[in-house]
């Protein structure tokens, strides 16, 4: 096991851009119970989650964007503030990714949602509230507008305009270097881990 620990190769895909059409999800504080209701967490795999994304919201809102054929092939999600709040369920970004989303642009994200998304290669970036409004209006007006979300240049390009995006340098670096799947990195110098652990009073004994 010790040998295996150091030898794990980091094999995640480098993500520098996502191209496609977009889907607007209006509303602040959209929580992960809405993105994927708890009954779908009763599962031992993530298979099939894409079908259930926003399931309860879609039942009560017949014109929900995720039910609208105009957005059926979108790969870029546009959101307002605090998208992905609430429960830490990774099932939420998993459901979005399996539905077909490759990138999210929001005014802000819940921290846990952002971390979970990065860990599975779903790129998230923030933009100002006025820029988000511009993007949402553009998409609602012309759903088949093709966009390029660039992690590299920190921008979203709609052909008509280019809007600046913010991504923390750690997240950006992870995506560009293909290191968003952190396990290999964390196992790289395991002796260092053992050294820190064995120095902790509650590990070595008081």
């Amino acid at each position, binding site marked *: 096991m010790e040998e295996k620990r150091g030898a794990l190769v980091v094999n995640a895909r480098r993500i520098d851009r996502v191209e496609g059409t977009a889907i607007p999800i209006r509303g*602040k504080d959209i929580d992960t*119970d809405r993105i994927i209701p708890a009954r779908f967490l009763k599962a031992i795999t993530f298979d099939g989650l894409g079908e259930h994304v926003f399931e309860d919201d879609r039942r009560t809102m017949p014109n929900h964007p995720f039910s609208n054929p105009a957005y059926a092939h979108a790969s870029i999600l546009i959101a307002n503030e605090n998208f992905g709040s609430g429960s830490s369920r990774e099932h939420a970004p998993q459901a979005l990714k399996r539905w077909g989303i490759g990138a999210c642009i929001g005014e802000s994200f819940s921290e846990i949602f952002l971390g979970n998304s990065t860990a599975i290669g779903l790129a998230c970036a923030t933009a100002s509230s006025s820029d988000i409004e511009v993007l949402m209006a553009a998409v609602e007006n012309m759903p088949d507008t093709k966009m390029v979300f660039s992690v590299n240049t920190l921008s979203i390009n709609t052909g008509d305009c280019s809007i600046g995006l913010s991504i923390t340098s750690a997240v950006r670096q992870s995506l560009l270097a293909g290191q968003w799947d*952190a396990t290999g990195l964390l196992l790289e110098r395991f002796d260092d*881990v053992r050294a*820190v652990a064995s120095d902790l009073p509650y590990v070595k004994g008081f």
Partner: protein
Amino acid sequence: MGKQTLFQKVWDLHTVRTLQTGQSQLFVGLHMIHEVTTPQAFDMLRSSGIGVAYPDRTYATVDHVVPTLDQQRPFADELAEQMMVALERNCREFSIPFSDLTNDRQGIVHVIGPELGLTQPGMTIACGDSHTSTHGAFGAVAFGIGTSQVRDVLASQCLAMDPLKVRRIVVSGKLGPGVYAKDVILEIIAKLGVRGGVGYAYEYAGSVVDSMSMDERMTMCNMSIEGGARAGYVNPDEVTFAYLEGRPFTPTGVALERAKVWWASMASDKDAEYDDEVEIDGNAIEPRVTWGINPGQSIGVSGNLPDMTVESPDTGAISEALSFMGFNEGSPISGTKIDVAFIGSCTNSRLSDLREAARIVRGHQVATHVRALVVPGSRAVRRQAEEEGLHEIFQEAGFEWRGAGCSMCLAMNPDRLNEREVCASSSNRNFKGRQGSPTGRTLLMSPAMVAAAAISGAVIDVRDFLMTRS
């Protein structure tokens, strides 16, 4: 040396190195696991051929899918049974200690960690559940993680993370009768907003917090994440040490004395520098009730729902919430009829919560139209409550007395709302659909307020209730 918050001290102690991405590699002192966020993580480990790095720093329980009525195996719910079987197999295969349903230590993960003395000051603690912030009550840096991160911790006992800023929240004064820790944290979230804590850990301080028991500190820290703060904590003190003494995993004898010295040293320095500080007047806090669809939408029980004559950035959210809940703008929250009363969840299901609710319920009857249940947070809480006869008080009043589990907090088990039912709940989230019915409605409040509402059949000020009683 000096000028450090508890957060900074604990973070520095547990940092292994800075990763190429710029994040810290953080050692996790205690990894609590449960059946919902582990199956895929263990499968990923198995397919990479890696084992669990520190099985003895890992501890498992089952709570989310566990039925609170009939716990016979196999469970009636096939999916729930599959998850149980998966966790049993994974713990067996990777030698992880597991308080399963044959074990009297089983319970809600954030109740049993502290109960067993696993949770200690100065640790980093992670679990695949956002209410892991609960453990911060002990002066630990504790936070929720997702399934892929669970895999990372299993494989390496480490996480790749960025440190948080720290906001100190000083709650001064003294809480009035009928006002509890639940009301304090609801007040904080209402004031700072559900996004206010994003990027922060919350340090709770002040005379109100200093005089809180560990159960109360856990209630506060539990809901940090509802305010956006991934972690929340209280500096360890004599109250903390007294709670820990004598528990199965707590040091004893000379080791305990040395531990207390080290634990005390983890507290924030007097001259620590915070990224922000906020003051809350504890004297002015009322019993609070949420009226909407996020935990920030709460008012004092004597207050009225927001009216929409004044346009604000929140008008859209308020309008959506009032419409979903079927409430009228400007009307009082007191008197709102309830259908279900739920006392339970990792927020409020500990012995002191049950004692307080029993005190209110004693000699009364649950309103005939109300379905009421009490779900102790763990088998140990249930046992202790029964030793004190609390279960008889609840049952005589018409409450169902259940087995330990997450129950109606999030309805991954048979306990759920039906259709448009309104539930007075001591849990932590009132999101749409949270309690198992897409149209069900949740009013969050303290266990005492739930007890009073169960008897009255409607939201009522527990202070008035207590006064008319005697």
